């Protein structure tokens, strides 16, 4: 199961179980704010080799109609995907 951002977050202590085990894949914060640069995928150039998807430490690149797309909520802008792309389909753009 892919962990996902929850719609309803615990607001009070009483909504969090008072033991040390909890639901798997329970996300309450994004990582987008960590990023200075963002990968932009040129869908024309992309040949769908999936090497960027394979090597992303955060697993935020996903298959999209024979090409790939990025979950910007959790991309940290490390740039590994850009370096791995042999056809130059990924450009790092400064975040404004």
């Amino acid at each position: 199961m892919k962990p996902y951002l929850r719609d309803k977050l615990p607001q009070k202590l009483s909504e969090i179980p008072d033991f040390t085990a909890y639901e798997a894949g329970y996300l309450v914060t994004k990582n987008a704010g960590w990023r200075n640069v963002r990968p932009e995928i040129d869908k024309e150039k992309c040949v769908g080799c999936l090497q960027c998807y394979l090597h992303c430490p955060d697993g935020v690149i996903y298959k999209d109609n024979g090409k790939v797309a990025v979950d910007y909520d959790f991309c940290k802008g490390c740039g590994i995907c850009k370096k791995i792309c042999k056809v130059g389909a990924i450009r790092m753009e400064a975040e404004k």
Partner: protein
Amino acid sequence: MSLNAKTLNEEEFFYGHKACAGCGGSLAVRIALKVLGERSIAVLPAGCMSAVGFNFPQLCFGNNAIISTFAGTASMLTGIEAGLRAQGITDFQAVGFAGDGGTADIGLQALSGAIDRNDDILYICYDNEAYMNTGIQKSSLTPFGAKTTTTPAGKNIRGNLRPKKNMFEIVAAHGIPYAATASVGYLNDFIKKVEKASKIRGTKYIHIIAPCPTGWGIPTDETVNIAKEVVDCGLWYLAEYENGEYILNHKPKEFSDVEEYLKKQSRFRHLTEEDIETIKRSRDLKWEALNKNFRNN
């Protein structure tokens, strides 16, 4: 045919974690779990991967996962495997992800015990070559010459004085059913090894080099390249141990430049010509032994 980028499970089981951008350890954990799938139960001792994966209530594992004591990765794996087996549950994989400190230093005794009992577990050491989570202290897997906060580079001493412990062969010397080395720079090789290990009964050990941009002093986009380069320049090797035999999986035709590999990382930037010669000499000695004792495949 073995798994690859196209056939790998599309699900993500390590997601939204708080590892630094470009973290090699998180890449190793993510890929291993994609191979092993939802029925794996992950054990993570104190170290970066537990620190970034469990920030309650942000829980970044999509499978069952638990934090162990620093020393107790292997013993907790043993307990999980025995406990589930006792309940008649069989379709699971108990897998540990421990750092170099957690493996080669404090966790070595528990790991040795598990191998001795031949417990049916998979132990993966993600080796970033220092105690990263506490601020880059030397472990016994820190290589010669590396600057850490406990092996600083000064006028008289230039970083770590001791060579990297040979964890892979120490594990193999137990007569373990399966052991392997890997690198996040060669993910297809790692995927193959995780898949193979998951099908073997008894104790399995995989040691994967997982660069840490923060501790190694490299740009965040260099993690995969540097993990490839450490293999290409001969300072790390891809191998397996199975049925009492050592197998070399990859033999560079010609080594790439060691100095280039070292000088890209701020932890090695202080090294002198002489230090680099020392490193090259020990690499050549290691390869002499590898060529003699390891079968090629």
